[in-house]
């Protein structure tokens, strides 16, 4: 049985901060099909569209009938653990720091035999479930997990390398005054975050409800943060930057209005200032320190979360300026993902559908309860995914985009 990860000890200020190392990241292009599934927490393998053979490792043609028509398909993830070993030596610096390390061979019910990381609670020669997880290099790897959940199984040292669990971590929620921000804080506290810094973009605006919320848990630390003000962002980073292990950017500027029929670009400028430049200011102020602290103790800096919108992928003309800012934020987030990659910090982009708050008053249901979005984000961190589609609207739009993007354009514009 896995031991619960203990709360990290206070850091020795004179000890050298360990620098991050990463697991081997080279992959063939075909193998990156696994990353696509793992990024969303799905379990897919390459399968032949002609003969149906499931194959692993991924190939260029079907190893059975030589067809080039290869798909990625959700397949049964069960299997039998037929051999295991515990590595006490490794040729790679990342694994050398993490020995001993258990791996094994799993004969999948779906056909292939795979080499996988093996969870400590898996029994020798027993049944296992396979999961595709992103490792600290952001590459997909197979993990063999016990057939049934075991207590604290997510706390095993191997799985901790794949996820960003907020438990015992300090989190900054950049806008904690919004409905979603508050729900986010609450979910993080419930998940065992040790401190939640909640950004207050309007300290001048009295709000008894917010004050009561802040006073409701000693782990909440309100901080002044206006993401449109570089000085404000820099000041906060100077003060708490070395304590932030997860940053969740909830700041948003949602207003109705298209592109051509707006009187000026004022609304668009405001939306971009918060949603795009705000993200960049935060990245410049907090990113480098987070990178430096990615291997700092057992609970180093681990994740950066962007609350985007499904409309980052499909413009909603009624909110054209805002949609454009979300699309730009997504683009910036992809660059950020590449920049954080060297430290192994996960960038998770969240794509919710409409959220049931004051700015979506006129949007018809289904709408997402802020608490549901917050719960999904916590789940995403615990699962270690990097793209998170939340709610029926988002899921449906994503499916429609895959099916026919032109149809989506016409329908959203109608």
């Amino acid at each position, binding site marked *: 049985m896995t031991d619960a990860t203990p709360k990290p000890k206070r850091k020795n200020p004179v000890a050298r901060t360990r620098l991050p190392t990463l*697991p*081997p*990241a*080279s*992959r*063939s292009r*075909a*193998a990156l099909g696994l990353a696509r599934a793992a990024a969303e927490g799905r379990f897919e393998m390459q399968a032949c569209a002609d003969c149906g053979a499931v194959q*692993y*490792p*991924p190939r260029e043609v079907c*190893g059975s009938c030589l067809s080039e028509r290869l798909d990625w398909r959700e397949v049964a993830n069960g299997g039998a653990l*037929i*051999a*295991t*070993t*515990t*590595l*006490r*030596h*490794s*040729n*790679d610096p*990342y*694994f050398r720091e993490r020995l001993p*390390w258990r*791996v*094994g*061979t799993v*004969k999948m019910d779906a056909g292939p*035999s*795979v*080499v*996988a*990381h093996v969870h400590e609670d898996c029994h020798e*020669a027993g049944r296992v479930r396979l999961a595709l997880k992103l*490792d600290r*290099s952001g*590459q997909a*790897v*197979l993990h063999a997990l016990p057939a049934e959940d075991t207590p604290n199984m997510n706390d095993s040292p191997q799985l901790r390398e794949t996820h960003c669990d907020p438990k015992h971590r300090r989190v900054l929620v950049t806008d904690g005054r919004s409905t979603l921000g508050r729900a986010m804080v609450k979910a993080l506290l419930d998940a065992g975050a040790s401190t939640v810094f909640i950004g207050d973009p309007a300290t001048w605006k009295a709000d008894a409800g917010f004050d009561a919320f802040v006073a409701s848990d000693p782990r909440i630390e309100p901080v002044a943060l206006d993401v449109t003000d570089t000085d404000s962002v820099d000041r906060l980073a100077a003060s708490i930057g070395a304590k932030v292990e997860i940053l969740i950017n909830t700041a948003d500027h949602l207003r109705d209005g298209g592109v051509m029929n707006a009187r000026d670009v004022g609304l668009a400028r405001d939306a971009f200032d918060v949603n795009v430049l705000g993200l960049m200011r935060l990245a410049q102020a907090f990113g480098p320190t987070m990178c430096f602290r990615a291997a700092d103790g057992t609970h180093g800096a681990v994740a950066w979360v962007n609350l985007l919108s499904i409309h980052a992928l499909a413009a909603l003309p009624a909110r054209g300026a805002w949609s454009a800012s979300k699309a730009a934020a997504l683009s910036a987030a992809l660059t950020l993902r590449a920049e954080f990659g060297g430290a192994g910090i996960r960038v998770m982009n969240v794509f919710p559908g409409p959220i049931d708050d004051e700015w979506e008053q006129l949007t018809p249901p289904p709408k997402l309860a802020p608490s549901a979005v917050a719960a999904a984000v916590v789940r995403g961190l615990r699962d270690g995914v990097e793209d998170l589609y939340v709610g029926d609207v988002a899921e449906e739009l994503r499916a429609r985009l895959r099916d026919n993007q032109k149809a989506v354009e016409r329908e959203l514009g109608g």
Partner: protein
Amino acid sequence: MRSRQSYDGVAAAVPFTVPYARYSTHAAHWWLGRALAALIRESGIAKADIDGVCVSSFTLGPDTAVGLMQHLGMSPRWLDHIPMGGASGVVALRRAARAVQAGDAEVIACIAGDTNHVDSFRHTVSQFSRFAQDAVYPYGAGGPNASFALLTDHYMRQYGATREDFGKLCVAQRDNALRNPHALMKKPLTLAQYLDARPITDPIHLFDCVMPCAGAEGFLVMTEERARALKLPRVRIRSTIERHNAYPDDPIQFRGGWAMDRDALYEHAGLSPADVDFVETYDDYPVINMLQFEDLGFCAKGEAPAFVREHDFTIDGSFPFNTSGGQLSVGQAGAAGGYLGLVQALRQLTNVAGAMQVADARIGLVSGFGMINYDRGLCSGAALLERGTA
């Protein structure tokens, strides 16, 4: 199927080992060049008269055999590059033999060699193959130790082999190696030391692992008339086999391609396992020796542990085996490891094995095994060799 033709009229000769070194500052070209020079010197054949070359090396990159020919100033009319790791020796022999038989070349130098810089092993392992890069190396980067640990774990569980069984083979090979001036391991090994060694990748412990090193091996293949004219002691090829990616549907490797081709091997030679005077297997890990005992017909599948308990594997023992000490005690010089057993067998059958000589050795069996591309070794080969007559 058409019956295979014999190797009549072909001779293998001039076994040579360029003494191994743990690390080398030289390139693979240096090691291969020294092997070729030695074959020329020992045979008395002029460099220009070697009209065929067969090369195996992991560390020759970015060159292939072609670049090596310019490097060595050779103009062969027949050239082969065999990237089959531990099966390279047997495969080189059978390719070269057919080329000589067909008249495509008259004298073929078969050489294998690799250098070993302090970081070359990690480099080789991390980029060994596409499947290894995609689906093995990211899982702990244990290299071959981890892959063979899984096979060993499965074999022990399935067939009841113990560490003592593996240890007996390793200890016997070390005894043999103490008679081999080229062996890198110079100290005796006891079973107690074997069992007490530190674990590397359970159930693989220190003395189950070969030591990567630099070195080269070589031999010549030519017509029997040519060998006779040069007064070279020579070896006849009775039969050979090779197989690649055998039994792909086995969930984990517990047998190699030899099992598919064993009957053909003995039938073609008109021999049986009982006729074999000594055996040189590919021994990158002791479990692979057991697979070869079974798959080459010395005992049934799953009975190698009992076979090991029954026999003495030293040079003077009941089953003379890996008489050079094998890679486990000599060292693994990259692709040269795939030649080690063959070159040693040629020594035995040409009476130049010195202190390692197996008394009255007439028939030798050499087997090769190579390329753990993903989860199992893909190439297997074997040859039955006979002492040549004057």
